[in-house]
């Protein structure tokens, strides 16, 4: 069973990983490029990073993006976790339909979601773009991702543990709080991280919901790529990459990426340091 991989296969995999990371590495390198012409290497500089702090437009965009992401993470995590837990636990009529409903936002072209929400908000409420509108849209497309993550873990939990808690005299609420919730926590955290990443990154759906004064970072970056790139874009992109990498590293240590298998909590903690 433990045959060695062929050299071709390993080489191919290595090449693919190189392909996945080369653009990111090059982008970060170019953020230290001492040239106004973004695409030609001139020498090393750190100038573009402090310059970001002078750029009010970008700073505003960062602030708006973070506010939207906070709302989206809280909303989608709450609604998505309940939905995932419900789907894993309850057998009810139409649960197949709910599963399909859950998949639909993930497989609908983003542009269709974007225009339909634009029409919905403007026709029914007369809204034409605001931070709240962006947040509502983000919650909508993040719910599915959270629900699916939580559902996978909830389905693999051993019901005997909850029964044991009840047998030992815990109330239903107490069992949920002290047994179910801690067991689900890694999946909920992973779902929340996913929602955060999706929200911070989204351009297509957001571009249809943004109005004056609600420019998010992706929209600001997009327009600056389209209409004259400044080296600052490389710098802020590198910062975003570093932050995302850091967040991944942290959730890796916390154990949010452990598979759906539900091991005892203390075993999880021990392996977390491995």
């Amino acid at each position, binding site marked *: 069973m433990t045959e060695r991989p062929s050299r071709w296969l390993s080489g191919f995999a290595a090449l693919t990983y190189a392909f996945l990371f080369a653009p990111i590495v090059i982008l970060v390198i170019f953020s230290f490029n001492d040239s106004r012409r973004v695409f030609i290497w001139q020498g090393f500089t750190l100038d573009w990073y402090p310059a970001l702090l002078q750029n009010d437009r970008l700073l505003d965009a960062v602030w708006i993006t973070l506010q939207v992401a906070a709302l989206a993470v809280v909303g989608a995590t709450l609604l998505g976790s309940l939905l995932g837990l419900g789907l894993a636990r309850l057998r009810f009529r139409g649960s197949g339909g709910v599963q399909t*409903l859950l*998949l639909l936002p993930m497989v609908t072209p983003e542009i269709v979601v974007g225009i339909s929400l634009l029409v919905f908000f403007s026709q029914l409420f007369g809204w034409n773009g605001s931070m709240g509108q962006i947040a509502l849209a983000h919650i909508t497309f993040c719910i599915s991702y959270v629900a699916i993550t939580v559902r996978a873990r909830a389905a693999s939990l051993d019901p005997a543990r909850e029964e044991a808690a009840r047998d030992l005299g815990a109330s239903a609420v107490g069992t949920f709080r002290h047994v179910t919730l801690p067991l689900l926590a890694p999946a909920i955290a992973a779902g929340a991280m996913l929602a955060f990443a999706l929200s911070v990154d989204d351009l297509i759906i957001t571009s249809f919901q943004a109005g004056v004064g609600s420019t998010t970072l992706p929209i600001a970056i997009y327009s600056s790529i389209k209409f004259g790139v400044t080296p600052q874009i490389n710098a802020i992109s590198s910062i975003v990459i570093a932050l995302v990498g850091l967040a991944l590293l942290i959730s890796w240590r916390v154990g949010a990426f452990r598979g759906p298998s539900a091991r005892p909590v203390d075993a999880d903690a021990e392996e977390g340091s491995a």
Partner: protein
Amino acid sequence: MPGVLWLAALFVAPLVIIAVISLGSLDDAGHLVLGQPTLDNYARALQPAFLPAFAKSLYYATTTTVVSLAIGYPVAYWISRYGGRRKIALLVLVMLPFWTSYLIRSYAWMIILRDNGVVNSALIETGLLADPIQMLNTDFSVILGMVYGFLPFAILPLFVSIDRLDQRLVQAGRDLYASGRGAFLHVTLPLTMPGIVAASLLVFIPALGDWVTPDLLGGADTTTIAKIVQVIFTSGRDWPYGSALGFMLMGVTIVGTLAGLRSLRRELIG
């Protein structure tokens, strides 16, 4: 489950509304008229003038899907069979680019592919090339950007499917004198088909609806349907027509999703 209500209100209802609007029309003053449902917008969308955009959209999405599967399957197989204890770490590495902004990644390719970009400069510097080859603003760059963007969507479901495959079945095939290739073709491939279907959908659909990559990495002749819809809704007012185009994209998606629903559910929901 309030989540269901939320999705019904903010996902299904808006879709129904654009479905209705796609049957409407504009009066002379440019106001929306919904009184007399008509299929005019769909007929307009199927005019020969728009066929190139449709063809282009399908061409990009299909090619991206095929290339992503061709790259993704061996990699997923390699991770699953030989990843050992590092499986999860290898998967997270695949996902890492996905967690960095899609936009930023397209932009990184602009730096690389430009006429005076990294690849051309390197080739000219080493004397392999006298003049830069145009790589940006071509079909090649659009497909490259899409494959780069959507490859993780292919690798994940493929990995799940391959990893779930009971290796004893492959072993049984070998014991019954199947060659390595034969066992792969007749055992591994059919049994991982749900993963292949799920991966295809998860790549094809976002590729079909993507306008950022064609916009940034493509040139003047890389107009896709998604790009047209985007222009109609951000700068024009002809919503009925834009809705019809959008709904046709949605139609392709729905057909694909229904066809692959069981596979998708199995690979994503379990």
